[in-house]
């Protein structure tokens, strides 16, 4: 599989602060959903900003879809990447829903007639067309994140980065947004990078990268990572629900597998266990 993003030996720190990344490397596969997890302060969000060229790298190299992140390529790279940030309030630039979706198009000097088509199409994809003349004050957090996603679809990127995009939403809103991004990923053949500490979300990813103190602790499929509860808690994360349940069963003398099972496989396993007894 092609690596759409390659991060090679990067180092970075904010002025007057400890080194955040030292010789950090990782790759993101094209067309996959990659979850980057780690506790607050582990540098996850900085990573997203480095990839989009919003912060300048000190050393090392980041390549996005064949282009090296530097001043020259910055706009081409931002055309390829759409970012959804944590605080729904702080990415709503426009005065109304449709103005906000148009913001990125205006920056690229798209003619007005074409903009109107794109705005309508994007808002319909996220189910917010009926809300087009609402002001942000009258929208819920989840609705604002939908608008942010519409603003991204409007620019037809290849990669979507969710920078803790669901952490300020209630559980319902969180699920809805993830479902929406999943649909959009499939409809438009996108690569998704989700920076999160929601373990149950990460458990559904194709690839999981665990970051702690500026280092990649592990990069693998969820199956290989989420079985070990102790390792996850030792770096401030929690384990997925299914791993917790397996561990609780193990404590009760049930001979259970040590690898990670997702919901469906766990249900199948429990059914087998019962019928075999």
């Amino acid at each position: 599989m092609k690596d759409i993003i390659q991060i090679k030996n990067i180092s970075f720190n904010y002025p007057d602060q400890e080194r955040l990344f030292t010789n950090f490397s990782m790759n993101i596969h094209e067309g996959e959903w990659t979850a980057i997890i780690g506790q607050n302060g582990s540098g996850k969000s900085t990573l997203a900003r480095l990839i989009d060229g919003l912060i300048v790298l000190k050393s090392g190299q980041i390549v996005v879809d064949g282009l090296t992140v530097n001043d020259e390529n910055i706009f081409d790279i931002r055309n390829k990447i759409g970012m959804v940030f944590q605080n729904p309030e702080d990415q709503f630039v426009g005065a109304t829903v449709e103005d906000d979706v148009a913001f990125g198009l205006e920056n690229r000097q798209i003619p007005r007639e074409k903009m109107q088509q794109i705005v309508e199409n994007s808002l319909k994809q996220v189910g917010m067309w009926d809300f087009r003349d609402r002001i942000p004050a009258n929208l819920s957090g989840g609705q604002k994140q939908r608008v942010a996603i519409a603003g991204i679809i409007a620019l037809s990127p290849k990669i979507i980065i969710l920078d803790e995009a669901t952490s300020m939403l209630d559980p319902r809103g969180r699920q809805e947004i993830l479902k929406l991004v999943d649909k959009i990923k499939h409809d438009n053949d996108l690569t998704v990078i989700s920076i999160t500490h929601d373990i149950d979300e990460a458990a559904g990813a194709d690839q999981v990268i665990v970051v702690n103190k500026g280092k990649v602790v592990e990069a693998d499929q969820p199956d290989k990572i989420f079985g070990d509860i102790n390792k996850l808690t030792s770096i401030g994360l929690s384990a997925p629900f299914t791993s917790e349940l397996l561990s609780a069963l193990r404590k009760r003398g049930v001979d259970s597998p040590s690898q990670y099972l997702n919901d469906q496989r766990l249900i199948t396993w429990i059914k087998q266990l019962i019928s075999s007894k």
Partner: protein
Amino acid sequence: MSNFLFGRYLPGSSWVHQMSPQSKLMLSFYFVVVIFFANNIWTYAALSGLILLVVLMSGVSIGYFLKGIRPLIWLIVFTVLLQILFSSGGHVYWHFGPFSISDTSLINGGFMFIRCLLIIMISTVLTLTTTPLAIADGVQTVLRPLKKVHFPVDTLALMLSIALRFVPTLMDEMETILNAQRSRGVDFGSGSLRHRISAAVPLLVPLFTGAINHAENLSTAMEARGFTDSEHRSKYRVYRWQRKDTISWAVFLLIGILVLFIRKS
């Protein structure tokens, strides 16, 4: 608390609603200027007639206007009283120190009253039928010619639109901060003057730091969406000049000329 000048817009599709914001803005300004030239009963009658027509065309009930004026009534009364007591000339009925009441001053007081009413009415029509955003866009259109002298009209417009967009956000935050500090025992609006002014600190520091965070995050989000500078962008929201604008201008100009003819010279 959220019901102040920003909550005033009443959605609708009347003649006035449909006019372009730039002409509403310019006509309101023009109207205020014309009021300055009014100086007798006929000129005031003409202008009052015009404003009545505008109110009718706005589809907003007269009661709503009167409700809006109510909180200002003492101010108007005070201004009218000043006018009566301090204007000089004519037949003096009563005087005491610098104060006097004369026939001229009474008439002037009456005109004063109508004048205040007219100004409040026209500005109320403007804000009831035009969203703050549209007003900001109107300002941008009106200032457009200044682009020739490199005045950053588009930057100003974007700034204004972001400011308006964030007013409700900051207001919500302020309410939360207010409640949080109240819960910590701050008594706002009472106590000594020193106490009341110091009470601004636990409100304003969080309000400002919050605003700074918004500005920073918003900047990141804007650049991630390809923003570089405000002067090289296409525009999604455009208000076109319409026949309604042309007709309105014609009527206003006509009344303006009429006022110049019938005013007492």
